[in-house]
């Protein structure tokens, strides 16, 4: 697609913004696309739901906000519930399996779940859950190439944590590839 809208949702502290940042950076810096990241947050949001949006496009992004995302990356049930219906017809739901209880969606949608928290915890740092999600995202969607995303992860995380984060990314990616190989989960 010429333009893809992506919404990432979760709660404060999960790295929702960084997640969007990495996707945008991957697209615009490492893949020659245009990518605009915006974020919704508010004083209302202290520690509660937050979301970031990326519009990836082959041409300059003029309207910066997401209207009906083709990808919803959900890291919390709250966020998922808030945004699940405001999506494109063919939306791909990419969700944290243990935090989000999937509901019924339109016929053209697809959904891929990953136990990102558990994978992150296995890696010893719950905090990399968002990077696991990203690896998984790289596997189950084709908005931004895997390599660009991986490079963006490497150059966006705090220095000293690259290895851990790349491992998290790879774990998520592997999980996604395996899952895709199995089957698409239709809901």
């Amino acid at each position, binding site marked *: 697609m010429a333009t893809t809208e992506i919404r990432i949702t979760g709660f404060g502290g999960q790295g929702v913004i960084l997640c969007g940042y990495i996707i945008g950076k991957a697209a615009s810096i490492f893949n020659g696309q245009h990518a605009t990241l915006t974020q919704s947050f508010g004083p209302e949001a202290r520690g509660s739901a937050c979301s970031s949006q990326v519009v990836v496009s082959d041409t300059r992004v003029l309207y910066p906000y997401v209207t009906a995302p083709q990808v919803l990356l959900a890291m*919390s*049930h*709250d966020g998922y519930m808030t945004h699940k219906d405001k999506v494109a017809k063919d939306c791909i739901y990419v969700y944290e399996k243990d935090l989000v209880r999937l509901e019924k969606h339109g016929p053209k949608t697809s959904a891929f779940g990953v136990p990102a928290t558990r994978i992150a915890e296995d890696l010893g740092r719950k905090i990399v859950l968002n990077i696991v999600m990203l690896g998984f995202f790289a596997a189950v969607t084709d908005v931004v190439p895997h390599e660009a995303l991986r490079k963006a992860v490497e150059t966006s995380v705090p220095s000293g944590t690259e290895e851990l984060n790349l491992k998290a990314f790879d774990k998520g990616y592997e999980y996604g590839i395996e899952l895709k190989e199995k089957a698409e989960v239709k809901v």
Partner: protein
Amino acid sequence: MKFWRTPLDIDKLQIPRGELHILKERCKGCGFCVEYCPKGVLELSDEFNSKGYHPPKAVKPEECVNCDLCELLCPDFAIYCVRAEAGEKEVSN
């Protein structure tokens, strides 16, 4: 300098008993109540509430002395204690 009241530790002779109420959905799992309950009544449960936090549960409810400290410390108005109807017991020490 003579204005304060009962210190945190319990030094009354007669101790009431408390009936705990935990509003699980409000809890954000900070653990204040668990940490500062003088009687070790509470523990964080494994259970998640819908926001993803682990609310406390009373593991030794019979020990609760209705000191209200959990209620006072809880930053989310998620726990409170009312005096139980049952009789009061004396402090052992």
